[in-house]
């Protein structure tokens, strides 16, 4: 394609949008509605996922060692555990640190009681690892590994919490997948209806172009430009709306449910829109592209 032809097609595509204002407006509206819904769904799902991740981070496995184990041995075990794929981080608490923590918790009001244990740490064998996982669903394999490891006396973990969380995360995944599929199906249906109207307008035009001797790509190019531009506008409009709505909703929720928000944090609008902006623009351009391709494909056979 010559450069002048490329610019001609680009210009024609943009002119087409103005020539068929009503049709363009309907298409932009349809795509905008679609992307608005997908955007809302994404915000909800991303926040859910974020909350689950946060909760998962608080789940940990605690490991106690055999009595009289040497510090070298403990260090060796730490090294081994850290290399496991399930592990995100391992924090070591020595017996002395454990006792300090215990004192703070239980003898805060009468430190003299704790003085009696001064030289005889009652938690002498209570040095431990607190292991955080990358993913709660991996807990089982890690526990099996830990139990088989030499030098480890006891592994404390909550199977119920972990499996409940895994199930919950799975459920959220399935539900959101279903909703997004339904939304996309609705979107495609709406677009195909809009496109049907477009066909009636364009049929004659495409036929004339072909009879004059236009190649398929020459006929198609302006339509593709038109579709993509409409798709991008259709994506940009709801993005502005969503940006505003999201901030307001988060602010509102944080104000209304302060007791919950101390435990739950929402994703910032930056985090949300860093993903949502390209996602929406790609979906918008994609819908526009597919829509215009479908519109003209049938009529190119002249």
């Amino acid at each position, binding site marked *: 394609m010559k450069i002048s032809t490329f610019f001609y097609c680009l210009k024609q595509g943009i002119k087409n949008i103005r020539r068929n204002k009503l049709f363009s407006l309907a298409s932009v509206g349809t795509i905008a509605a679609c992307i608005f819904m997908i955007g809302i769904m994404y915000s909800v799902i991303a926040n859910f996922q974020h909350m689950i991740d946060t909760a998962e981070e608080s789940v940990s496995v605690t490991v106690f060692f055999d009595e009289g184990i040497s510090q070298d041995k403990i260090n060796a075990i730490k090294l081994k555990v850290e290399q496991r794929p399930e592990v995100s981080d391992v924090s070591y608490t020595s017996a002395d640190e454990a006792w300090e923590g215990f004192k703070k918790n239980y003898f805060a009001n009468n430190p003299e009681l704790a003085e009696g244990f001064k030289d005889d740490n009652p938690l002498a064998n209570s040095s431990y690892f607190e292991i955080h996982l990358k993913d709660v669903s991996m807990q089982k394999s890690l526990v099996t590994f830990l139990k088989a490891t030499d030098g480890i006396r006891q592994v404390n973990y909550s199977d119920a919490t972990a499996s409940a969380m895994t199930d919950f995360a799975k459920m959220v995944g399935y539900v959101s997948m279903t909703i997004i599929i339904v939304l996309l199906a609705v979107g495609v249906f709406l677009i195909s209806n809009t496109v049907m109207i477009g066909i009636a307008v364009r049929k004659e035009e495409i*036929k*004339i172009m072909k*009879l004059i001797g*236009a190649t*398929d790509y020459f006929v198609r190019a302006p339509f593709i430009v038109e579709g993509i531009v409409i798709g991008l506008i259709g994506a940009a409009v709801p993005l502005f709306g969503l940006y505003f709505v999201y901030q307001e909703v988060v602010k509102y929720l944080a104000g209304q449910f302060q007791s919950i928000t101390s435990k739950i944090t929402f994703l910032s609008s930056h985090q949300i829109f860093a993903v949502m902006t390209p996602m929406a623009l790609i979906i918008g351009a994609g819908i526009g592209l597919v829509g215009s391709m479908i519109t003209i494909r049938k009529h190119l056979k002249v």
Partner: protein
Amino acid sequence: MIELENVSKSYSTGAPAIKKIDLKVEKGEFVFIVGNSGSGKSTLIKLLLKELEPTEGIIKINGRVLNTIKRKRIPELRRDMGVVFQDFRLLKDRNVYENIAFAQRVIETPTKVIKKRVPAMLSLVGLSEKYRSFPKELSGGEQQRVALARALVNNPAILLADEPTGNLDPKNSWEIMRLLEEINKRGTTVLVVTHNREIVDAMNKRVITMNKGVVISDEKKGGYLYED
């Protein structure tokens, strides 16, 4: 220039539209194809444009055998032919200038050339003043002249006109015919499908008469033979 050998075209429903036609049009000829509706005239034009495929027979245009042209090569074939239709078929959303320029854009003519060529065509058809008008602002005769300018802007070897005066009053019809004759004098082969008896009789050109899909007469300097 145009050659049909034993060409037939039948649609899936009903009788064949064209039956075993043999036809030869030489370079630079001016030919009328006449006949009443249903005689197969329009089917003939569609076959020449490769809008339709013949059921049997061979069609040759300008040395190309249409039967074997691949779909991708059809545009090249059509660029050798200018076409004018009864219903003008202008692009409604573009002005006169853009309608004519479109035929040049299609073959990727540089804009510089387009800017010279389109005004030349406009003055040939006498519409220089109206280059910014849209089709709906023009009379039927003016629209057909735009269509003619579009058909000629690329200097085609052949001009096909399918009932070019079908929607026009006698004055405009004669205007179009005068232009077609002028174009023919400049060397373009012109093929006009019509049932305008008055014009055919007056112009004294080659007349091919069709009836029910068959050529019933071919006169070098003829008149409108067929009786309705």
